[in-house]
């Protein structure tokens, strides 16, 4: 890698760092209970919950397991469980 002038960086390049390695707990979504309010997507600090084929799915490459989505889900459809590694 050659250094860019003045430490200029490319947009969105933090994506190479998979912060999913940080987590201890992983969110488990109960799709049946989900009312698609999208609050989990709105609140996620990693912007890693997305609607995929109509269902909200966390991107496990980046999910840090913070638990904000589980705490805020109005239907308690998300549970944080200890991740098996």
């Amino acid at each position: 890698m050659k250094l860019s002038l003045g430490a200029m960086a490319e947009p969105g390049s933090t994506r190479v760092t998979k912060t999913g390695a940080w987590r201890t707990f992983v969110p488990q979504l109960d799709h049946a209970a989900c009312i698609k309010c999208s609050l989990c997507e709105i609140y996620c600090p990693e912007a890693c919950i997305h609607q995929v084929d109509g269902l909200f799915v966390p991107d496990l490459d980046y999910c840090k397991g913070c638990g904000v989505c589980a705490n805020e889900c109005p239907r308690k459809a998300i549970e944080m469980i200890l991740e098996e590694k």
Partner: protein
Amino acid sequence: MQNLFAPGHRACAGCAMPTAVKLILDAAGPNTIVASPTGCLEVISTPFPESAWEVPWVHSLFENAAAVASGIDVVMKRLGKEDTNILVIGGDGSTFDIGIGCISGMFERGHNVKYICYDNEAYMNTGVQRSSSTPFCTNTTTTPAGKVSFGNPLPKKDMPAIAVAHRVPYVATASVAYPVDLRKKVKRACGIKGPAYIQISAPCITGWNFEAGNTIEIARLAVETCLSPLYEYVNGELDGVKKVRSKKPVEDYLKTQGRYRHLFRKDGGAEVIGKIQAMADANALKFGLLD
């Protein structure tokens, strides 16, 4: 929702700040340039050679983001690109204290810069030291609670009032717990000509000392206790207030955070809580937060 703040950034798990940035950029859109001061946001988002920013972004120093943005504004005008949003997104340390001179100059000259402060109430990036945004009797590393101290003896600086006094046409407070309101305010700011100031209440897990998942809940409690009133000033007049449906006692908020633990353990703590309650009640009265 378009996401212009990429994952892979180094923010603490559950941090309110990236949520706020995501919402800000969603409201402002891709035709936006951002200047940030040194601080948590800058550090977690741009560890060279990586950057989380999907919009053009510049960082210079700790206290000059407002001046840098002024320089960008002047060039955008010159290029006929006045519709480009120019934002400063910075923390309370650089906003309330070290950067206030540059901010005053930027406000006073009427630049088309929207200054958005994510307020976590201390110098968090350097280790939770007190800033002039730190509320009364809060434990920080430079105003620690101790045998003869309840922590920060001074009240929070009223930065929005300073913006209003500079005749900034749009001044608002917001919270990560009220995302629709936050986006609406950012959109409103981007829609007016001239400077704007938005202050976003953003709890800090490391500095306020609470479990990662509770960030939004705590931000909501700050609003529901009337400690963080949500309002708008347009051309110097109070224009919009988010009413609090069921006001909660400040204890409900204070007990959730380790930084107020001493108020529940020390002799005289109850008296301090009473003073904080009085501040919340004064906010409710001043802004008409209750029906």
